[in-house]
């Protein structure tokens, strides 16, 4: 019988990571993130890490009723900002179990009341009275790597407001797609290169974007600085010439 797991919890506690750990033990599964909107950072990351995972968009929720997914274990991640009490699924998804991934020292919350199972997650310090959520799609943009590093450093150290949670996927000049992740209270981690092919022609049409949670976010400055990190068409073409040459060399070396 199909198993549906709803996964909720505070930002940065490790919902996506918990799902990744469980799916990695399976032959196949489906994933959907309710509340990610047009910025599916978590879904894109999981799709690149787990080839056995089918990632659906919010608009594809109805597909879960299709015979194709009858035998699939399904994980539905619920954005922290969703009101769990008034959550109504637009389609009938059947029976499900509720898992809350919560920081160990978190106070009693609606997640505690809602969940069938509580999982102790990362000790994130993302307690916000009125969280400010900001997102931006960057699909089609290619960023200068050194600029992105400067921007990310400034971002997570408070230059643009009090950022408590930040995650992003960016296409950079050398063709790679990189995942950045920051959770206040946890050690800073390096970016991760997603297991995706180097983008070598034109502007990328794969997803890239950023999601921030914090307080007093200076949205305009964030947006402008991100824009300043982006390369123009001429620069992209220049770098892609080198990527193409590299790929040709690699191919010839492999023969």
């Amino acid at each position, binding site marked *: 019988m199909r198993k549906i797991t709803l996964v909720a919890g505070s930002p940065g506690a490790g919902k996506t990571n918990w799902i990744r750990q469980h799916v990695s033990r399976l032959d196949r599964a489906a994933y959907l993130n309710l509340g990610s909107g047009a910025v599916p950072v978590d879904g894109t990351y999981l799709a690149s890490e787990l080839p056995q995972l089918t990632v659906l968009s919010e608009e594809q929720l109805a597909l879960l009723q299709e015979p194709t997914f009858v035998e699939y274990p399904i994980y539905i991640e619920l954005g922290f900002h969703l009101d769990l009490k008034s959550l109504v699924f637009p389609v009938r998804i059947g029976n499900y179990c509720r898992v809350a991934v919560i920081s160990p020292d978190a106070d009693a919350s609606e997640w505690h009341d809602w969940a069938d199972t509580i999982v102790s997650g990362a000790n994130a310090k993302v307690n916000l009275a009125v969280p400010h959520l900001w997102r931006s799609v960057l699909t089609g943009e290619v960023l*200068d790597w050194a600029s992105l590093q400067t921007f990310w450093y400034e971002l997570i150290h408070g*230059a643009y407001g009090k950022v408590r949670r930040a995650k992003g996927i960016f296409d950079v000049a050398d063709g790679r797609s990189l995942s950045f992740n920051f959770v206040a209270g946890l050690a800073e981690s390096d970016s991760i290169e997603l297991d995706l092919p180097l983008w070598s022609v034109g502007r990328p049409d794969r997803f890239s974007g950023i999601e921030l949670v914090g307080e007093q976010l200076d949205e305009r400055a964030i947006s402008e600085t991100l824009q300043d*990190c982006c*390369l123009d068409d001429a620069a992209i073409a220049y770098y892609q010439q080198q990527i193409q040459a590299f790929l040709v060399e690699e191919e010839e070396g492999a023969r």
Partner: protein
Amino acid sequence: MKIAVISCIHGNYEALNAVLSDIDTRQVDRIYCLGDLVGYGPQPNEVVAMIRSLDIPTCQGCWDEDIVEGLNACDCSYPSVLAEKRGRLAHEWTNQAIAPEVREYLAQLPVSLRHENLCFVHGSPHNQHEYLLPEMDAFAAMERVLATNADILFCGHTHIPYVRSLDGGQLQIRVQQEGQVPVQSLSFSTPLKRIVNAGSVGEPRHGRPNATYVIYDTDSDRVTLREVEYDYHKTCAAIIERGLPPIFAWRLARGLEFAERADDPTHICER
């Protein structure tokens, strides 16, 4: 005789004031300035007025040159597209802000200054934009000092103070003209040479907002690196008040460069 060497003030009047006050307490006989009076900071005219009022011998920095001749930064300077955009913005702001007499003053500054066996430049003896990083090749570093015929080369531009002694240098020159024998050769040992970087008064890059400068005592041949605290909050407030990017204020408070940074000691400026 005690000589104070200051550099890279970058329109930061509060920092300059604090450094000059500190110099006053050190029984210094003379002050030299290695340029970059303007650029990035909010008070370029005030800084130049102060330098001129004290008649401090000053050589022209890269920013001073760019304001006079137009922006022409080379690949030495910007580590990223973002840094380059910020640099350009700062240049445009400064270009608009400085008074005509300040521009004239910057235009007439010499590229280098000399006092006995001491030479004072902004970047390197070859141009104002070249960084003399502490890890640069020893032979190249020695060449820079030998080119001035001085024993101590004072420089700025990197914004991180240091003293580098170059000793034990052995130079061999072999000349063979085509079709001619024998080869002419000459070898000699170089005497002790030093490069002294004065750091930056107005735009620190050492992780703290404090100003840095150096004092050289000609009698004891001793170099002292000085770090001076000042009310950087006032400079930060002025940055925002005068319409410079707020990120400059944020970076100043953390002792980070506004934009430029050189981190490749093998790079040779080709300007």
